[in-house]
């Protein structure tokens, strides 16, 4: 009967199960770096595209979201894998150390002392404390070891940072799944309905408050009432930097528009049409076969160099509407309409009189519901804490013992990712010990 041939001990110990191998791969830092750099390279390419194209074809594509999901998985597995070892490293340090053990450390000093025994170690304990180290004294059969440490929470910096990144990704996903973003607005008396949120907004007064310098964009305040099924759920004023918030939804003032009030009069019949035009609006005068198009409104009109109409300021000192008419598909050159100064248009079906009778403003809103915002905020704060722990709380440990064989103090130190930092502290400790020894 053939005997089962066992593998070599080395082979047995290194062969991990396929699942373990996959997990190791998914949690590896190499994969994390590759995914991050891949995201960076794709983003570089995306910036060569037009922004909206990039958003629709790259940033919201399944494969880009997939890479981000893999990055999140990598972060999660990596974090889980490291929590145990790091906790042990932080809270279960080896406090006892022999003189030979300390001498084997990369950073160590052997300092001859005059008085043998516990006295030099007591002195070192004070020096450790003055360098901010929490000290403990360990007595073993081989002697006394003085142990000092500081910054143990620095071990968890990377864990906190990774968790914060996961929270940010989670918050972004939750916000995207449960929220929405849209734009809407109007002038005083208008209303609009937001189907995603099943509520209606009625716009009350829209008022403009000018800055001291009239060339600076004025502030626009608009009163808004939010109702659902006829019941008021929120009322308030929306302005720049001051949105209206309700049910996790925010209405932000995005910008404002000028609206021209124009009267079109038929001299033959005396009928007057009172119309309101946004910039770019068109109106077809059926009976005259003419199309009127509002091009731009200038509150403080002037003619710039090169015959280009412009506005000197936002103050309505000289309101002018630039317009254009199209007769039988043939565009006429643009012309200007001053406030309360009628202009007569000659059309194939007789003259028509147009007058700019006034103007008003419309508010444009960005409406967003983002329930993931608190999660994102916690993630951001956690990340700042995590990075602080990683970079500025560097864990350091020092050991000292008296070597009776050589009548010397043996001091050694170890740091977590900061050898030079430990070296600097060691130099300070050494110099203080030598000072006390009178060297």
């Amino acid at each position, binding site marked *: 009967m053939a005997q089962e041939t066992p593998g070599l001990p080395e082979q047995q110990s290194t062969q991990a199960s396929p699942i373990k191998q996959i997990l190791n791969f998914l949690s590896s830092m190499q994969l994390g770096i590759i995914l991050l750099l891949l995201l960076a390279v794709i983003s570089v390419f995306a*910036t060569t595209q037009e922004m909206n194209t990039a958003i629709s074809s790259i940033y919201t594509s399944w494969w880009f979201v997939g890479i981000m999901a893999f990055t999140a998985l990598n972060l999660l597995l990596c974090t889980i894998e490291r929590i145990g070892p790091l906790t042990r490293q932080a809270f279960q340090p080896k406090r006892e150390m022999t003189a030979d053990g300390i001498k084997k450390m990369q950073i160590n000093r052997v300092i001859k002392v005059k008085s043998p025994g516990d006295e030099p170690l007591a002195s070192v304990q004070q020096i450790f404390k003055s360098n901010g180290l929490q000290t403990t004294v360990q007595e073993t059969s081989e002697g006394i070891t003085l142990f000092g440490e500081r910054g143990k929470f620095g071990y968890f910096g990377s864990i906190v940072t990774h968790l914060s990144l996961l929270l940010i990704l989670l918050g972004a996903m939750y916000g995207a799944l449960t929220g929405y973003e849209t734009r809407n607005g109007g002038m005083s008396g208008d209303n609009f309905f937001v189907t995603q949120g099943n509520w209606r907004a009625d716009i009350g007064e829209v008022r403009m408050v000018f*800055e001291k310098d009239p060339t600076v964009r004025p502030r626009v305040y608009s009163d808004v009432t939010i109702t659902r099924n006829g019941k008021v759920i929120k009322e308030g004023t929306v302005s720049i*930097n001051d949105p209206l918030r309700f049910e996790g939804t925010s209405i932000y003032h995005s910008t404002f528009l000028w609206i021209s009030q124009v009267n079109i009069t038929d001299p033959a019949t005396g009928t007057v049409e009172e119309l309101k035009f946004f910039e770019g609006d068109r109106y077809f005068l059926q009976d005259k076969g003419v199309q009127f198009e509002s091009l731009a409104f200038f509150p403080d009109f002037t003619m710039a160099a090169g015959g280009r109409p412009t506005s000197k300021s936002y103050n309505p000192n000289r309101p002018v509407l630039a317009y254009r008419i199209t007769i039988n598909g043939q565009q006429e050159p643009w012309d200007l309409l001053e406030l309360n100064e009628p202009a007569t248009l000659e059309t194939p079906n007789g003259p028509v009189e147009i007058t700019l009778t006034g103007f008003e403003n419309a508010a444009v809103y*960005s409406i967003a519901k983002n329930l993931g915002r608190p999660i994102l905020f916690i993630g951001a704060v956690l990340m700042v804490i995590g*990075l602080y722990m990683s970079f500025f709380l560097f864990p350091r440990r020092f050991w000292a013992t008296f070597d009776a064989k050589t009548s010397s103090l043996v001091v050694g130190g170890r740091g977590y990712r900061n050898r030079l930092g430990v070296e600097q502290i060691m130099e300070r400790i050494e110099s203080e010990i030598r000072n006390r020894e009178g060297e």
Partner: protein
Amino acid sequence: MNNVGLAFYILSLCFYFSAAVIFLIDLTASEKQLLPIARILLIIGFITLTLLMIGRSVVYRYIPLYTFHETLLFFAWVATIVLLVLERAYHFRAIYYFATPLLFGFLFFAFFFTPASVDLWPELRSIWLFAHILTVIVAYGTFAVAFVVSGMYLLVDNHLKKKNFSSLISKLPSLDILDYYNYKLVSVGFFLLTISIFLGAMWAQHVWGALWRWEHKEIWSGITWIIYAAYLHTRLMSGWQGRKVAMLNTLGFATVLFNYVIVRFFLTGGLHQFY
């Protein structure tokens, strides 16, 4: 203010230029001890620059961080503080040799952009925005000095590989020390860049209702963040040190410059069109 401001600007330029030239002479001429003189000139230049920025703040009634000209001045100002801190905390004087010419370059670059003030739109008058710009420029200033340290590392490394032990090398710190300073500077810059991105997102959320709008400036800030994150990860977790991370740091600073200058002028638009 225009003439007085221009005079202070020219004075700052002159002091930084003189300091840069004298530092370079000190570096290349082994027998001369000109470093203290150059250092004093740099400090006078720094004081002049500080007065210029204080003057702008008083006259224009805002902290001068909002136009490209102003950010360049602030960039040079912050980087000078980083140099002074490095000297004070680590006695790292050799950084002056290479960093001062770069700072002069940034100051001189500001000459090509209008020093006129800007009328802040209401939405720009926000403490979040101010904190966002402040932290990002401080981060960029720190990255600039880290880039210089990487350059110094590569220079020393090349000389040592060729067994060229010139007097120039004797004036520079060891590779280990340079690597350590590099790491410290990048970690401070990365910390500030992260805070800045969050502050910018919070400002955008507060004003426009969107934390992230996939704008070029945002994307390139993300790319810069990723490259410096890769630097820190490879250094801390994979034990990469020295030449490889110095080159990665150089790439990181290239993205900083790209975002700061190229994106500003060639990929403009959106909410970051002013900076």
